[in-house]
């Protein structure tokens, strides 16, 4: 099978305005992926499925990944005009100091597609698509019209991550019930407070158990056998 660079050039030769990017994979598995833009995703997918050499007719796996916002603290050297008193005389002086600047790099949701070929018996070719952010711009085009196997898997990603797939024939929740709010697989998902008795509570569960006790009884948490404070 062709390498990922060869596949990229094949697609670019056929669809010149497809903005592709290779996402390298540092692990020993060597499975590098190709990032495609949502705008041209359907054409790229159709090309990959119908191209005579690649014939990637089997979509094996569709995965959602949540990459939350990252707070990055950088040390930046800043040159500033300052006023300093030197020997009693005020002078305008340039001073260079190091400042720690914090910025939020916006997170995104990602859909990863693993493609194989039943006819040519090769694969995997991995495609990735990223949303703009995690809050309001979470649409991606659905590849269900190209590969039918994406139908349930994209529904599951919509259910558990919140990516809205435009063009999906029947986009509704799959594993959670229809009236459920929130998306459980996100990294910042908070479980609802339906705490049950657990005698060997650890770490996070222990803390929530004690909070639950205090809230429920309005008193300080009391010692229980096995779940001691």
């Amino acid at each position, binding site marked *: 099978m062709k390498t990922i660079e060869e596949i990229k050039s094949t697609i670019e030769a056929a669809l010149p305005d497809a903005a592709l990017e290779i996402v390298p*994979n*540092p*692990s*020993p*598995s060597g*499975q590098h992926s190709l990032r495609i833009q949502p705008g041209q995703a359907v054409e790229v997918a159709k090309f990959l499925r119908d191209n005579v050499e690649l014939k990637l*007719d*089997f*979509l*094996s*796996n569709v*995965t959602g*990944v*949540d990459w939350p916002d990252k707070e990055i603290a950088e040390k930046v050297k800043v040159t500033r005009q300052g006023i300093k008193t030197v020997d009693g005389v005020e002078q305008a002086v340039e001073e260079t100091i190091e400042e720690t600047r914090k910025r939020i790099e916006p997170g995104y949701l990602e859909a*990863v597609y*693993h493609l194989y070929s*039943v006819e040519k*018996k090769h694969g*995997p070719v*991995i495609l990735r698509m990223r949303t703009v952010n995690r809050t309001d711009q979470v649409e991606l085009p659905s590849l269900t019209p190209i*590969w*039918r*196997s*994406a*139908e*349930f*898997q994209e529904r*599951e990603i919509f259910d558990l991550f919140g990516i809205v797939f435009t063009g999906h024939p029947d986009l509704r*929740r*799959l*594993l*959670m*019930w229809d009236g459920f709010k929130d998306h*459980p*697989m996100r990294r910042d*998902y908070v479980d609802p407070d339906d705490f049950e008795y657990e005698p060997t509570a650890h770490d996070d569960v222990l803390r929530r158990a004690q909070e639950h006790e205090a809230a429920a009884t309005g008193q300080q948490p009391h010692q229980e056998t096995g779940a001691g404070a």
Partner: protein
Amino acid sequence: MNPSQGDSSIIAQRPEGLPPRTPIEPQSEGELLEIAMGPHHPSTHGVFRMDVTLDGERVVRLKPVFGYLHRNHEKIAESVSYLASMPYTDRLDYLCPLTNNWAYALAVEKLIGQEVPERAEYLRVILGELTRFQNHASSIGFLIQEMGASGTPLMYAFRAREKILDLFEELTGARMMVNYMRFGGCRVDASSAWLDRTRKVVANLPMFVDEFERLLCSNEILMARTQGVGVLRPELAINAGVTGPMLRASGVNYDVRKVDGYGIYNRFNFRVPLGDHWDVYDRFMVRLLEMKESLKILEVALKEIPGGPVMDSKAKIRGLRPKPGEAYGRIESPKGELGFYLISDGGPNPYRYRVRPPSLINLTILEDMCLGHDVADVVLIFGSVDIILGEVDR
């Protein structure tokens, strides 16, 4: 349609001499009936619901509804270590815990570039094929039970399954939730006493398969109910991501054991059964023939298993922290292609852990297969998909 000797695939044969099904005319005029089959239902292989819209007896629309067994296994895996996820994989496809373990171990070994010693590979093949045998036997047993045979073939299948589960218990300590594979091999070595007992069990299994075949294959009720029912065209099957015996019963020669050749499967000479009528009877026959092929692999593997360690000496069990990266590892589980997709960020827990469930993806075309058939056929078509809810819902 005779199997050619040089080919690695064989076509499932069927006995002749039955008149074709008569087509059903539309029965009612006007109202459609919406019923919910399940989740409390003896034939739905677990807690599974199908919202079926009927025109008389004929299916007009069918929507599968599941999620009753959803335990969010993928999120649990993000909060425990790689080793601690292994017992949870047992509970995915709970009829075949060893193949689930193997798929997860394979994915992690791909992620960290871990070698597996030869004896461990042979043990994995032996246990994997035993698992495949008992899964296909149970699956056929459940299918016939849903046809109304009130349990006789199922109990025959379970009689053979009990012997295999006893072997598992002797080796791993548990009948079903085995927690046996590790990243770099297997947890404990198999003693020569165990191998001898396995050889004895495997020597008796062909008699069981022949008995099963004699009981079922030319049974007229079975043939009348399953031939021509639930036809799945090969192009639709490939496009819908169907894998496993269901894909091979639609005539597509795609077996991950042959395509990827993971482990040491390229050392074994086995054929891939295919169907050429693409219906429920073919799926049943493909599973039966795969049981026979599994026995062939087992005989060879049990003869050739070498000595040596079962765990790579450099393998790390506790405190595994793979370098950042990702890997997708897949095997041919008895239900289809079971894959694990792992993303590591360098920490002790996986960043993203995804199970590609063959049962869920095989259900994508359940509606297409059932349209136009009777309600009674829906149960059979669904039984021939052979799903298990632990995997569908995770």
